[in-house]
């Protein structure tokens, strides 16, 4: 039993190490820069649908609606804005602040201080597929994704090791 346990633990350790290694191996982001992005929102997608930035970048986002009122709720960055058609302003609030007054801004500004994939979603009911209207903000380096893929590969490797060990009679 103990030999089996050791191998199970060894397997788990390999998984974690492989995942961590993969995540750590991603090259560090380029130096922070300022990014100005023009985005449009329509029923039911944003264009560009995916934003790629680097960690530390200051993102200045202008969004224009092509049809009806849309919203822009960016998770993890405390940004919730309404995009009014025919208006140059976005109506910005921060979900974490209660009872806040709406601020009219021309662009959304935030610093991409967290890495990974974050989604932005429409927050004003804009039609049928409103709940599925979303886009992605990917802040490089996406260490979680790297670690995850590495962990999958590590798990496979661990399984191979468990399968190929010499001791007979253990499943």
């Amino acid at each position, binding site marked *: 039993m103990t030999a089996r346990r050791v191998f199970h633990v060894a397997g788990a350790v390999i998984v974690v190490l492989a995942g961590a290694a993969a995540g750590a191996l991603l090259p560090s982001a380029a130096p922070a820069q300022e990014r100005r992005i023009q985005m449009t929102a329509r029923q039911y997608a944003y264009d560009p649908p995916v934003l790629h930035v680097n960690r530390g970048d200051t993102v200045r986002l202008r969004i224009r609606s092509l*049809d*009806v*009122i849309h919203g822009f709720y960016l998770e993890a960055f405390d940004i919730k804005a309404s995009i*009014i058609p*025919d208006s140059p302003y976005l109506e910005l609030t921060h979900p974490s602040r209660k009872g806040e007054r709406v601020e009219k801004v021309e662009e959304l500004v935030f610093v991409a201080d967290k890495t990974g994939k974050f989604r932005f979603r429409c927050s004003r*009911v*804009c039609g049928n597929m409103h709940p599925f209207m979303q886009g992605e903000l990917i802040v490089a380096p996406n260490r979680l994704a790297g670690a995850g893929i590495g962990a999958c590969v590590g798990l496979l490797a661990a399984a191979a090791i468990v399968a190929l060990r010499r001791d007979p009679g253990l499943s």
Partner: protein
Amino acid sequence: MESAATLLVLLTLAGIPLWVLREEAAASRVPDEPGWHVIDITAVAPGGIFTFENVVGHNYWRHTPAVARPVVRVGEKVLFRLRSADVIHGFSIPELQVGPIAIEPGYVTEVRFEPKEAGEFLIQCVFRCGGCHEEMFAVLEVRGPNGEPPPEDMKLKLPPRVKCRLNRT
């Protein structure tokens, strides 16, 4: 026990729709003071229509509702209960300083006002709601305090629809 179970089922089958009707009636009643003239209007994006009709699940996609023509009197206390069947619409009667107010889908938005002068006034949608937004109008007719029709020079004719003609089914 069998008869108790059967009774429960029958109570459920009858009770649920009755409960729904009761709650709907309760929600439609205006609390506080009596004497309000309540007008229910629903905004519909396909066709750009303000309607009196109940636009719900079973008719939204297959039926084009009729354009509403609310009629009120000078001196009445008017309460508009506004609904949207799809997206965020706007509601505004600029000449009477009513609104602009956003109509959120799935909620009832209330607008109260007391008309002071007789005439016909334009109701328009002020938040772009789709292809028919520019033609989304209705006419509010305000009659005199005793029901007299508005004077001729205060009548309003809506421009004919070009893009969003209404072929009623």
